[in-house]
């Protein structure tokens, strides 16, 4: 347990870098700019287009990708823990702690993206808008956790964690469709939860369960592939 906390603290320190702050800031600015453009082009449906497009389309996956890359020190998952592992700490538990921190941070940022999009592209404040915001927030948080687990697993593939890029490409490539392949990546399920095209005609509750299952499987596989 102590090792997991140590991994979490270690990851927290790594994520406190200026580069990470800059990345998150740029992502927020992009979300705000694109949401503003959507609204100025056509006010009707601007919020939906912003959420489908910039927030869930690339801001959340890219944030998860960057954060997981950072906790892996741009290498394979848990390779960055060697300075601690040499003193008897388990890489697996260190990895678990760091993935936990990555999940929480990505979820917080994702919720922030949702509210920024809501504030910029949404219409005047109303209970309806607030409800949309709350719904989108939990979907964003769930998506963030799923993406972190997804990229954590792919970070354990390849000598230097190059599998992360495969994960990103697969998500973008397969997630656009509605076939069986789409049901294997987070993007299609998030789109379904937002009210878009479902993968394999799955219901929204099924997609939520799928996302949770996908996160659990990816996390378990990622930790299993890390050397103890």
């Amino acid at each position, binding site marked *: 347990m102590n090792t997991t906390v140590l991994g979490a603290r270690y990851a927290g*320190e790594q994520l406190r870098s200026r580069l990470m702050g800059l990345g998150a800031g740029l992502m927020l600015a992009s979300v705000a700019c694109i949401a503003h453009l959507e609204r100025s082009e056509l006010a009707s449906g601007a919020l939906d287009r912003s959420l489908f497009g910039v927030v869930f389309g690339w801001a959340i996956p890219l944030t998860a990708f960057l954060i997981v890359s950072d906790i892996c020190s741009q290498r394979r998952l848990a390779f960055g823990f060697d300075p601690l592992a040499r*003193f008897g*700490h388990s890489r697996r538990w260190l990895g678990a702690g760091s993935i936990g921190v990555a999940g929480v941070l990505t979820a917080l940022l994702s919720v922030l993206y949702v509210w920024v999009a809501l504030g910029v592209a949404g219409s005047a404040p109303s209970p309806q808008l607030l409800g949309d915001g709350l719904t989108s927030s939990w979907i964003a948080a769930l998506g963030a956790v799923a993406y972190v687990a997804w990229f954590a697993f792919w970070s354990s593939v390849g000598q230097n964690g190059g599998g992360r890029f495969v994960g990103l490409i697969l998500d973008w490539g397969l997630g656009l469709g509605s076939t069986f392949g789409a049901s294997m990546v987070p993007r299609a399920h998030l789109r379904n939860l937002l009210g878009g095209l479902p993968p394999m005609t799955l219901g929204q509750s099924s997609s939520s369960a799928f996302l949770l299952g996908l996160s659990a499987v990816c996390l378990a596989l990622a930790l299993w592939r890390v050397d103890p």
Partner: protein
Amino acid sequence: MRQLELSNVWCAPLQGVSLRAGSGCVVIVVESEPPGAMLINLLAGLKCPTRGAIRLDGQSPHQAPALRGHLGTLLANEEPLAGARLDEALGRTLAPHLATVVAISAILANADLLEERSKHPTLLSYEQRRKLALAIALATPSPKLLALFEPLMFSEPAFREQVLASLVELAESTPVVCVTASTRDATALGGTLYFLNSLGVLRGPVPVDEVREPQPKAGFLVECDDPARLAQALSTQPAVSDVRWFEEHALGIVEALGADIFAVSQAIASAVLDTGSNVRAVRSARRLRDAEQPGEPRP
């Protein structure tokens, strides 16, 4: 008794390194840094061999975190510990049984860093980082192995002497593997000597006398069943400049000398393989010559 065993370990640039050691000091003299650094990383459990196996008390250091907690290591490239203050970073990094206030103070005192305890770890110099890593390694509770890269390469003679004394004491009960490029340090450490060339090939064990006082003609005495045949095979080897054989108490001995001790050992190995000789022992020629009585006849 602690037992370290490397069997046919490959991990670039190491090529098929095999080594077995119990308690005592094993000194590996390296031609260049990369193979030595990799060997220490492997022993520390930071790298996994691509082929072959490393076993310490039957466990792989890479796969066993609990075992790594009992390894004292000094790497070729010591990175700063993560943390805002040195003592805090130590307390966080070290395994729970070492991370007590007393142990941390003792480690810092041994590394001459007690006054730097509130410093940021990244502000330590290269030598200070090495001193700290060595102090941690020497403080390892019930160590199962010490794997140290250049453990005596420190600018202060007093610190060097202190380290040497600690290593000699620890080597009585623990395998201590030291990697060094300095033959002076190698001879000071003593124990069993090996040579690791820049291609990552380990040769040895080499008698310590050959390193202490290199002879113009170094060589080996090979005890075997058929000395005449082996001597004939050795005489055709270019690395062997002088070869003689004799029999003592029904024991065949071949003496092979040459300018390069490695080339001679290589020549003996290939001659033994070619002739299929049954070799009982290989010893330093110099050591046996020293032991001989003056004037003892030889055929």
